[in-house]
């Protein structure tokens, strides 16, 4: 099958280009990450990130035939019709909207900055008990669908609002984490967290486009979390 990969080495290339490779999959429905390993055996200069190869570490977010996802849990048959059969090439590009360091490796700095801005850690100024802080199963259930985020950036880099204002709009990943702590019964910094979000950009640049939901490899729903924060801000304003 044919694989077309975005290549750019800042040391030698004036501009990026797409390079074609031929890979023998022996008809198997391999994961995209397996294809990259086969290409790297041919051409060791190809750069991409990878670690767990099972969809939990979030290293290998990339754009596959136009859609963001994790290479390690995306089989060829799911990329686009015809790719597995070799009728169409597999087209791999870096996550959009972030500066490219080399090939499929993007500079995640802006993405991590926005994550750090939401103070992604539990805050509770009451003295900790000798055992755990008690939390009912119902309270705990409120952070399901939030804590599972793997920071792969597939969502934020598919979000037009993030493309336009990556420095001011926090983006779906950071906002999901913001709500993860707002929703945690053990956290009591709600007011401080909300006041930091109450400006025209941080949260309100979300226009409900929902690309984040359609690409999240963990099936999470940042748009819903953003909706919950909006409601909290609204109630607080009344």
């Amino acid at each position, binding site marked *: 099958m044919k694989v077309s990969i975005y290549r750019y080495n800042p040391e030698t290339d004036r501009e990026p280009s797409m390079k074609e490779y031929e890979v023998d999959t022996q008809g198997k429905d391999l994961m995209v990450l397996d294809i990259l390993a086969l290409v790297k055996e041919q051409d060791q200069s190809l750069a991409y990130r990878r*670690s767990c190869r099972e969809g939990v*570490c979030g290293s290998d977010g990339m754009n596959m035939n136009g859609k963001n996802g994790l290479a390690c849990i995306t089989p060829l048959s799911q990329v686009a019709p015809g790719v597995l059969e070799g009728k169409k090439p597999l087209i791999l590009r870096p996550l959009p909207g972030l500066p490219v360091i080399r090939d499929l490796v993007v500079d995640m700095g802006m993405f991590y900055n926005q994550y750090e801005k939401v103070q992604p850690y539990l805050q509770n100024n009451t003295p900790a008990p000798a055992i755990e802080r008690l939390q009912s199963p119902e309270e705990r259930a409120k952070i399901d669908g939030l804590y599972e985020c793997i920071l792969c950036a597939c969502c934020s880099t598919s979000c037009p609002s993030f493309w336009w204002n990556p420095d001011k709009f926090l983006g779906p990943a950071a906002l999901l984490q913001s709500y993860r702590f707002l929703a945690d019964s053990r956290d009591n910094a709600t007011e401080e967290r909300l006041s930091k979000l109450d400006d025209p950009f941080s949260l309100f640049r979300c226009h409900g486009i929902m690309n984040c939901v359609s690409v999240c490899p963990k099936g999470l729903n940042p748009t819903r979390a953003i909706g919950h924060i909006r409601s909290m801000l609204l109630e607080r304003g009344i």
Partner: protein
Amino acid sequence: MSIRTITFDAIVVGGGGAGMRASLQMAQSGFKTALISKVFPTRSHTVSAQGGITCAIASADPNDDWRWHMYDTVKGSDYIGDQDAIEYMCNVGPEAVFELDHMGLPFSRTEEGRIYQRPFGGQSKNFGEGGQAARTCAAADRTGHALLHTLYQQNLKNGTQFYNEWYAAELVKDDEGNVCGVIAIDIESGETVFFKAKATVFATGGSGRIYASTTNALINTGDGVGMALRAGLPVQDIEMWQFHPTGIAGAGVLVTEGCRGEGGYLINKDGERFMERYAPNAKDLASRDVVARSMMMEILDGRGAGPDGDHVFLKLDHLGEEVLHSRLPGICELAITFAQTDPVKEPIPVVPTCHYMMGGIPTNVHGQAIKLSGGHEGEDQFVNGLFAVGEVACVSVHGANRLGGNSLLDLVVFGRAAGLFIEDQLRQGMTQYEPTDANIDEAMARLNRWESSTGGESVPALRKELQSVMQNHFGVFRKGDLMAEGVAKLADLRKRIANAHLEDKSGPFNTARIEALELDNLLEVAEATAIAAEGRTESRGAHSRYDYPDRDDENWLCHSIFDPKAKKLGKRDVNFKPKTVDTFQPKARTY
């Protein structure tokens, strides 16, 4: 010496659970600490831990006792775990786990609002007399992910200085062998830098990638063990590799023991629950070494499933959709993605898969690295400036076989312990050892070798060959002549790897360079494993030999110590002197 020097009080190499628990401790103390990680910390392999963290927090059973956990761990280790270290881990454990809750780790909960605990293999109440315990604290089946993200978040809060996507390549020592820091490469730019520190903490994780089939992440290449061995430092019990019973057949992806804790069980091709024959009491919750061997016997006796009869099944469908989706959601995802199997409807094809390195750099409970000495208790000498925590270390709390859920506890307890100790030492005034230019040049030699290579075999081909040697010669069952052959093949590979070729010598984000440096480490770990496995002439825990089928307490109730300079195996005493409880005496190990 023409490279830049960056100076800290302490550096931690590795951003998994152990490294980040250590760095957190030191960052809180205000000492200048850096954490160097070859990946962004939340991409570390701790993230893949599923089932939980075993600890007697007395939630599932209000009468639970850390001494029972200690008994299980000593028995699980097949009696070569150090009892003072196991005592410390099990005793301090609850405090360390409650801290994790206070930091925000989203544990699953009981109706009482406490942390949910599930049964895991090898657990008992009342020193083996009270039946199965439920002692593994869980965040669904994503406990490692929850733990790793929580620790990263706390490090952010406390201002740890991260060097993410920096690769530590070599230890720097002075002429007396004192550790002065490490040489590291900024992967993004390609720049090589000397990190100078009074304390260097290795938290580099395991080396599962020495095997062709492993549950380990692609990054688990034994960098810390490789650096230690090249520096002439010993490793302990390195022949002890855990094969996890349930790796997804073909893919190698882990399926947590928590599945069996929740009531799942293994069946052969005839649908028989075969563990009843091998471990009549604990059945599917026997220790991992026992279950893995039983599965292999089923397969070797022709009761394996599939066209090649090469796997068995993990049956979960009887647990019902609700339990599976609430307690084991990650497993359902993984089974569908990697086995095209929905556990709600059909069993998952599984096979024992390389999972965990029980051996590593020998340390005491403070993480201080031990160097070769007389080999008897009380005679340990330490490598000044070097510490190791987590999977790369061999404290040893796991001995010849680790119990499920004990690795996460090991990480937080000993990451924390090393942090506390170093903090204290720094306060008292620790020595900064100064390397000469020649010392730095020595540490740079390996990098320079690759940089000047002009031809030779390729890294991916050599890596594949090494992995297949380990898979075929040092698997679940081992045999002297087969291992001798493996040792010879590795000796040949050593010569070839020394002449291998790095074609791409570019600077920015050159992953070919990193993979070449990792290959050197894989080789060091593989060779140490091979020589130690051939040298331990008995069967104990995960080390099981056809030619020496029995445990030999007379000769081998001890640690093995591999000396990389002589390439010889020595012995070191196991600690049988816990401080607050009576010694657990070795006895026959049945489940």
